[in-house]
């Protein structure tokens, strides 16, 4: 029945969704609790400014002066970390689209039901995409609640923009992991491939971004992380072009996954 896999996936993954959501919300809350006022933010900013350039780049800081305001501090201290967590989340759920069940032998039973393979993949992807959005929303709630306990005045619209910008990146990363699962089947192999691709993308993006004119800098546009820059969003708002590109890449990768999964032997 159309939609049944989508709803059942949501229903069976509610604990998983809640755990990830609460975890990310707590990180947001703790981040805000660490800087109750401008004085503590200034002290923290000074400490961060003394970090090596590569570390700063990992935090998404191109320029130390970016840390001056609470919004830009959040972009560097919270959203740069949220990218890594969402990347881990994406790999976990991307493999759960089909690879996990294939490795556990469950897929034999599921595919003996009157269910086309494309429908299984597509409905699972959509369910996990929605779970991704819910987890991002939880993160926002955590940060928002944390903010209420501080004296800081923050442009909350830009904060929301950063959360919205995180969604297309998460979807693209889920699609990458899903593609690896569809191509390789077995979880260990798919996990290795998905983790490798995502980690390589992250490294290329943050190292390439800090070394102007280098080879990595040239490769950087190939990485999905290149199209989510929390500091730029904080300064200029959402970049719809980059978000659109990530969504197009997601659609292409999901289509490719479905095509690959449709063609190959399952559980071999």
């Amino acid at each position, binding site marked *: *029945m159309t939609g*049944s*896999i989508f709803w*059942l996936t949501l229903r*069976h993954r509610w604990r998983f969704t809640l755990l990830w959501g609460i975890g990310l919300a707590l990180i947001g809350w703790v981040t805000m609790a660490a800087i109750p006022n401008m004085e503590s933010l200034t002290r923290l900013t000074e400490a961060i400014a003394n970090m090596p350039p590569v570390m700063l780049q990992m935090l998404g800081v191109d320029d130390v002066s970016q840390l001056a305001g609470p919004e830009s501090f959040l972009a560097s201290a919270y959203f740069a970390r949220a990218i890594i967590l969402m990347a881990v989340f994406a790999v976990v759920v991307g493999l759960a689209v089909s690879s996990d069940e294939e490795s*556990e*032998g*469950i897929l*034999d*039973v*599921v*595919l*003996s*039901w*009157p*269910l*086309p393979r494309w429908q299984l993949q597509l409905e699972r992807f959509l369910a996990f995409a929605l779970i991704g959005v819910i987890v991002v929303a939880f993160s926002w709630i955590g940060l928002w609640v944390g903010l209420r306990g501080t004296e800081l005045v923050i442009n909350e619209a830009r904060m929301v923009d950063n959360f919205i910008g995180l969604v297309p990146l998460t979807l693209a990363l889920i699609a990458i992991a899903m593609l690896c699962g569809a191509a390789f089947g077995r979880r260990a192999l798919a996990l290795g491939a998905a983790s490798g691709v995502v980690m390589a993308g992250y490294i290329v993006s943050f190292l390439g971004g800090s070394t102007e004119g280098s080879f990595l800098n040239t490769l950087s546009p190939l990485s999905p992380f290149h199209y989510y820059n929390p500091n730029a969003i904080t300064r200029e708002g959402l970049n719809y072009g980059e978000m659109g590109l990530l969504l197009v890449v997601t659609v292409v990768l999901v289509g490719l996954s479905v095509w690959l999964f449709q063609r190959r*032997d*399952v*559980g*071999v």
Partner: protein
Amino acid sequence: MTGQLVIETRNLSKSYGRGIKALDSLSLSVQPGEIFGYLGPNGAGKTTTIRILLDLIRPSGGEARMFGQDVRQQGVELHRRIGFLPGELNLWKGLTGREVMHYMARVRGTTDWRYADQLIDRLKFDPSLRVRSYSTGNKRKLGLVLALMHKPELLILDEPSSGLDPLMQQTFNELMLETKADGRTVFLSSHVLSEVQAICDRAAILNGGQLKTVSTVEALTRSNVRLVTLKLKGGGGAAMLQAVPGVSDLQEADGHVTLRLSGDFDPLLKALSAAYVEDMHVEEPSLEDIFLGFYGNGNAVSNGRRTTDRTGASS
């Protein structure tokens, strides 16, 4: 039996890398309303056949059809009409048996819950527990409920009774016979020969990916093979009977000669004419004997011309 074939394969083959041939030109047909046993040792190709029928894997050659439809092209439609139990049933460990049943019912869009509850009662299965807490036997029961609960036209069961206790085995046999009485079809692979002998109408024997024989179970067990035990005065019968046409598996112990005879009795009786026969006992072989004959050298026992000395060495 008449009507459209429920399962039909023609020259079905499946090869994996490095030249491993899991299935070699399998041509098989299953009639509607029959219980068809699919026998063979591990690696014979039984599960490969089933996985091709379910479109989990794709054949390297040949074709497979169910209800006259191609298993690849019409897979979804066909899956509405079948119930499947895999050899090793793996399900979501965190769900209860009942939740798994609801999951499947929702995807299928239909289920006769009254019949599902009857199955639960008859199999003495508790669906309220989580899958992770089920024993092998209970998992098997859940698998049987899942395969049967929507009353499919065709049941495909891979080693269905492994893990069931003798009482449940009896219930399983009854369920299969009821399915047949409903006019529905059962295709089951099995190692349990007594099960095949008890409920199957026909059986196929597969070895090394090749079909060795297909026949009614009755014909298989009443093939032109007999197990003969002789008591000869003075002993020494084995040497005398070694060259007799149709005699194989010749053994002598405690003054008794046992042999397997295929074909007519006349050559044996003529060879015995010079001996004093104190006692002679003739029995039909069990399906297991026939099955083991196919395993041994890939030839049917009924065609065998092997002779064996007391130590079991072929000559």
